[in-house]
């Protein structure tokens, strides 16, 4: 089976997000006074084949551990969809 995994990588609480801060200032300058906080992360999409959804999820989790997420500063949230 084929799966598409989407990994949402976010900076942990307490880790300075300089990009988020700059974007916050820009949004305010554009008149969006309601904005209180901006955090910027990244989204990684992976297409993989696996025998089952659980197996696919396990594989993606181990990819996060091996390379995709630095646990000191980031968290990764995995979502999965079967694509045939």
């Amino acid at each position, binding site marked *: 089976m084929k799966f598409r995994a989407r990994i949402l990588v976010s900076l942990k609480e*307490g*880790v*300075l997000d*300089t*990009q988020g801060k*700059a974007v916050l200032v820009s949004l305010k300058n554009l008149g969006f006074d309601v904005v209180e906080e901006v955090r910027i992360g990244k989204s990684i999409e992976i297409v993989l084949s696996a025998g089952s959804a659980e197996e696919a999820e396990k594989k993606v989790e181990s990819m996060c551990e*091996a*390379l*995709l997420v*630095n646990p*000191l*500063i980031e968290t990764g949230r995995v979502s999965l969809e079967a694509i045939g």
Partner: protein
Amino acid sequence: MNASVVVFPGSNCDRDVLYALGKIAGIPAVPVWHKDPVLPEDTDLVVLPGGFSYGDYLRCGAMAARSPIIQGVREHARRGGLVLGICNGFQVLTEAGLLPGALLANSNLEFICSPCLLRVERSDTPFTNAYPEGTLVQFPIAHHEGLYFLPERELQKLEDNRQVVFRYAAADGSAGAQHSPNGSLNGIAGIVNSSGNVLGLMPHPERASEKLLGGTDGLGMWYSIKSWLEGGAR
């Protein structure tokens, strides 16, 4: 006495380091390709040079830290061999878990290319024994991700263990966060591992090794390493 300088795709300070070691300091140095699984057998010092390994994709140093050669670097460090990571090399060492912490984007979001004053916090390491403690040196920095970050409790442990070797400073000798050009916590510019044989720093000593290039404060690092390896500084 032999040095190996690892070359990753995107390294751009490898030749400067080879030149500083070989031609200026008189430490024979050879380039080593990142796909080699082992270091040359007679390696005493490994340098991970500056640059933009793998285009800084994903996170600075992340892919380089998973290169085949890193296994050899790890072995070398475990045996007590000297490892020096400069700029991108420092980022690689943190990503490989050979040094604690992470380097985040500079607080002003700019690429900073500038001479920088640093205070040498320790003169009892293999890399800094030629500098008396508290010496101010000027090395240039050139980076976009140089903000040293470590969660508060671990940062305190790092300070308690005296692992901070270089701190951003001012001409009056004061050093600390207020002098970080990049927002580095506690003004940290360079650290060692707990056994002291692995050093990472953001500033470039190899670019401060010849008068022609504006200064020679970096020579102390090469001479420190040389006398350590010769046994004089142990």
